[in-house]
């Protein structure tokens, strides 16, 4: 009997270890293959488009995580994305900082801003939260156009960035190459996805979901419901800021359009298209959205076809592409078992 129990326990532990090893190997292969195979097969144009899709996917990931874990819809993701880009660009172009110093400075300013904003808005109800993120985002997007800040922001013309120097040993000028940038964006997007996957399975994820489900009961269970929400809000905006830094490194340029509401709504749509549960859906949604926009643009009917596509996607895949596919696979598995 004891032997059986011991055997079962060992087997379970062994099973877990082997599953974990398998997951690490599969992840390493996926990370490497995703970073380098497309650079051999795809044209520069496709790689650029794919990189834009990955950046949008990272924004969608941040929007989806907050929706899924905390039940909060943010409409101000672009203000963090574009704001981080502006700070990074100003740091390098106006303040003469090295890329690494500009990145750190921009990161600290954005995190401080997000903590202050989050402290004000995460206590509110979901509708008020959505409107407040929208208002804060619009405020930032108009602030960069102020005449008094034109010397720093370039006003409506935006800001051109001289990419020189290196970050973590990578020459930033090299990132103008579509293949190298794709590899960088892929690795960062996958790591961000993994980080959110892990957070969703951590205690913080469990507390966020419980607060979303029944905030009052959480307070009556002795939990502080404010701090976990604030941490969640800061974390998703860190990812949005990283996407903003990458955007500047790729484009060498930042403009008021990157702060616009359309970027925030595109991220929301990408998240809904891909599926908000998990990390794969939003990133896939970003890629689908970027390629679809290009295809629709080529026909000169971007807005019309985008609208039709959104309606079709949401009707056909109410839980997003990934949610729909996993349901279909589940159904297929059930049928196989039944037969």
């Amino acid at each position: 009997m004891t032997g059986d129990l011991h055997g079962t326990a060992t087997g379970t532990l062994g099973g877990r270890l082997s599953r974990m090893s398998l997951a690490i190997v599969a992840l390493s292969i996926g990370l490497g293959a995703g970073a380098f195979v497309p650079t051999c097969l795809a044209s520069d144009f496709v790689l650029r488009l794919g990189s834009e899709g990955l950046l949008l996917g990272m924004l969608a990931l941040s929007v989806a995580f907050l929706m899924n874990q905390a039940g909060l819809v943010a409409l101000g993701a672009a203000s963090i994305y574009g704001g981080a880009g502006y700070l990074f660009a100003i740091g390098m172009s106006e303040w003469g900082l090295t890329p690494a110093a500009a990145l750190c400075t921009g990161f600290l300013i954005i995190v401080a801003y997000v903590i202050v904003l989050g402290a004000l808005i995460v206590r509110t109800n979901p509708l008020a939260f959505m409107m407040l993120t929208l208002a804060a985002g619009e405020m930032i997007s108009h602030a960069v156009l102020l005449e008094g800040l034109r010397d720093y922001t370039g006003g409506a013309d935006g800001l051109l960035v001289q990419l020189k120097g290196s970050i973590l040993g990578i020459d930033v000028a090299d990132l103008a190459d579509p293949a190298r940038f794709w590899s960088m964006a892929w690795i960062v997007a996958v790591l961000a996805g993994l980080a959110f996957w892990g957070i969703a399975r951590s205690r913080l994820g469990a507390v966020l979901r419980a607060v979303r489900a029944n905030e009052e009961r959480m307070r009556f269970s002795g939990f502080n419901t404010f701090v976990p929400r604030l941490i969640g809000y800061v974390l998703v905006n860190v990812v949005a800021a990283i996407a903003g830094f990458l955007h500047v490194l790729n484009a060498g340029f930042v403009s008021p359009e990157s702060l616009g509401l359309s970027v925030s709504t595109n991220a929301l749509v990408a998240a809904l298209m891909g599926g908000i549960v998990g990390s794969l859906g939003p990133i896939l949604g970003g890629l689908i959205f970027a390629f679809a926009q290009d295809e629709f643009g080529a026909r000169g009917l971007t807005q019309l076809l985008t609208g039709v596509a959104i309606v079709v996607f949401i009707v056909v895949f109410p839980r997003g592409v990934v949610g729909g596919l996993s349901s279909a696979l589940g159904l297929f598995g059930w049928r196989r078992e039944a037969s």
Partner: protein
Amino acid sequence: MLRIEELSVSYGSVRALTDVDLDVRGDGVLHGVIGPNGAGKSTLLDAICGRRRPTAGTVRYCGEDITRRSISWRRRQGMARSFQRTSIFEDLTVHEQLDLVAQHLGDDRLDDVIEVMDLGSHLDQKAGRIAYGVQRRVDVALALIGRPRLLLMDEPGAGLSATETLRLFEHVRDLVRERAIAAVVVEHDVDAVFACCSMVTVLDLGRHLATGAPEAIRADHRVIAAYLGTAA
């Protein structure tokens, strides 16, 4: 353990409670609060647990004025509450939610709570998919985690049959005695209250009407006139 002094609560221009006093001693006391609809019973519980801020008066818990303390602070100090409308985490399994709260409150005797509330056979079920009576027990179990010193229960018998209500009251009474804690129970089922509570307070139109042992309350002519009627 709990002392309420001249507590008043208003909803705009409507006074839900007026100058209510209540004294609940510890050590195994199950204190029932009864009264007709609109008497202010749930409002009293809301004011005690911090859900509603009183317009006047004080709430003292273990000698300390806690009138302005937060709900989560009160919970961490051992004041727990269950709800009239079951308040649980429907998307989590019974065990997940009990474990989440137990970890937070540092309670390593979760098995005791599961056993007392007879939830052992429902642990892996999503709370939203179990029978209402079991959901009520989960609601009470969430309040029992962390070895509370004062348990506040708002109509624990709501939605249950008279037999189930009586059984739940007996459970709570035994628990309160065994752990030498105190419980304040608001309930419409006066039979269960008189059968299990050691002290009873009657509210009427937001005012304190009487407090005493069940027999004394049952015989009090003011309580009979205002609430119990001659049938009681």
